[in-house]
């Protein structure tokens, strides 16, 4: 089985657009974008993602609370999650991984290599 469906949770529309483009066109993935943690919790199960990319700082429900909410949904409890953050200090990364994330992708990311980065993360969890 290969990686096909990615759920991407990000509130910034500029970043949404460029990441979606990068993942769809370069990686050939099917990407669903949610603009908030609330939306992700409501719509994630129906999309049945194989990997979830989660922005850390969002208004309303932030990344860690969204992760917690996702983990409470039995269908998604085991789907790997990678955080995306501009606060990529070692200590913060440790905290995020302790929350149950597989990995932290630092922002700003490079749209050219995002897909291969995501593929590697997913493969490492299989």
């Amino acid at each position, binding site marked *: 089985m290969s990686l096909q469906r990615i759920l991407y949770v990000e*509130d*910034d529309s500029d970043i949404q657009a460029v990441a979606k*483009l990068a993942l769809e*066109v*370069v990686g050939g993935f099917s990407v669903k974008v949610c603009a*908030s943690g*609330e939306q992700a919790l409501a719509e994630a199960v129906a999309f049945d993602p194989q990997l979830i990319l989660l922005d850390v700082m969002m208004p*309303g429900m932030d990344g860690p609370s969204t992760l917690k909410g996702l983990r409470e949904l039995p269908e998604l409890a085991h789907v790997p999650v990678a955080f995306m953050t501009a606060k990529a200090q070692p200590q913060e990364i440790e905290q995020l991984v302790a929350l149950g994330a597989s990995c932290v992708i630092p922002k700003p990311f490079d749209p050219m290599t995002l897909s291969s980065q995501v593929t590697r993360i997913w493969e490492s969890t299989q």
Partner: protein
Amino acid sequence: MSNPQDVFEQRLAAMRHDYARQLAAELGGIQSLLLTPPAFDDRKRLLQAHQRLHRVAGAAGTFGLPNVSQLAKALETLLQDSLEKRAALTSADTARLSDALEALMCEGGGQSEHALLEQAPSVRDEPKAGWSHASGDEGTRATSIWLIEPDQALGEKIAAQLANFSYSVRRFVNIADAEAAERQPDVLLVDAMAENDADGAIGATALAQGGSPLIFISDQDSFEARVRAAQLNAQGYFLKPLNIPHLVSRLEQLLRERTAAPARVLVIDDDTELAEYCQIILESEGMEVQVLASPETIIEEVRSFRPELLLMDVHMPHYDGPDLAAVIRQFDEWSSLPIVFLSAETDLDKQVDALSRGADDFLTKPITAAKLIAAVKARVSRARALSDLLNKDSLTGLLKHASIKSAATSEINRARRAGYPVSIAMVDIDHFKGVNDSYGHATGDVVIASMATLLRQRLRQTDVMGRYGGEEFLVVMPHCPAEAAYQRLETLRQHFAQLRFRHDTTEFGVTLSAGMVCSEEAPDANGDTLVVLADEALYRAKRGGRNQVCCGGALAD
């Protein structure tokens, strides 16, 4: 163009360009948050600036501007420290913040916009293949139009005329060919006959489903044909022979709607949870939302955030919503600002009272996300349409004389307060009377409309421009030092000179002259004086032989 990598790179380049364009404005906003007196000393503004810097730090690098990312990150960290400190900032703290802000503005603000655009490949600032010769060239850098016209000769003619307006036109003789093509155009222009062929209608709808607006062109003006176009959700129906300026003005209108700035909404509610709920919902639709928990600062907030709609609770601890609405209505300039109440209030008398005191509408809590979005969008778009009618010139779609003067004054004042440079330019079409006399007023109008279109295309979204007189335009460029403004005007001049206009079988070109001044070159001048200095510089350009750009203020020779 079927290689996904090529498609990706082109679209990425376009996104980078868009991002670079709006970045200067975003940084300008952050700068004024930080520098509005008392500078660096308002916790709420520092918090907002911190959040916005965090976004820039996370995004700019992705859009090919790593230096901006790093400098934003540095300033964000300093702000974080200041916010955590809680005690008053020392002068050393503010000096560090000022330095970091200045470094960021130098890198990403108006000053180095040219360098920015070099880093982030430009969509609009490169010479275009389609400028002066009528190729059906599939340039990816201008607004792309797909023309589906079975009559090849006619298609060529239409494409040639549209190329005058710097659109890149790709021609197809039938819908099937267009369906097979890669990518999506910005606008679809479809001949009604092509649409009538076999599966044409389904094809046209399917094509338009990609999100491109659809416009029909036809030599038949029948009710049935128009209804058919309406059913296919066409945004326009133009009869042949085409009136190109009218078509262009519709195209511009469609494109403007698609790239309209996000609506700004101010939410005033003591219930922070509800306020945040509204904020999240409206922001998820791409709107800019600020929440005001204490109504005492409403006047300052409306003045600085300039919302296009107020969403307000009826009952708040110290002030009633209707009282606040009445306060807003005391200011002439906010007399048409839409005010919508959001409240659990079901008491009819209370609602009538609120409406009579300046509110526009009531939304009853609890409200669904869809209804909130629809209500806010409809109000904002009607308010915008109304303000356009009042303030914009019908031929050019730019601001009218009175509006551009007041917009110029307020831009200049804002720049003075925040301490960034602003450049003012007067642009005038050369020998315009001759154009009208030789080719008639209809052709003259085409020249003026083209000038306006070009101004919109070549300047930034944050620039303010208006029709100052008959063939004279006033442009205000915030965050733009003299050198950059001169370069922009020079580019504008060159491109305008390359445009070819037609009257019957005659083809002709027109030139422009411009006079400009930067606030840095005239530190004591107020808004009116700057306009006068720009006008004097324009006069020198005219006297110096026209078709040139002259500078005023300290740079005047």
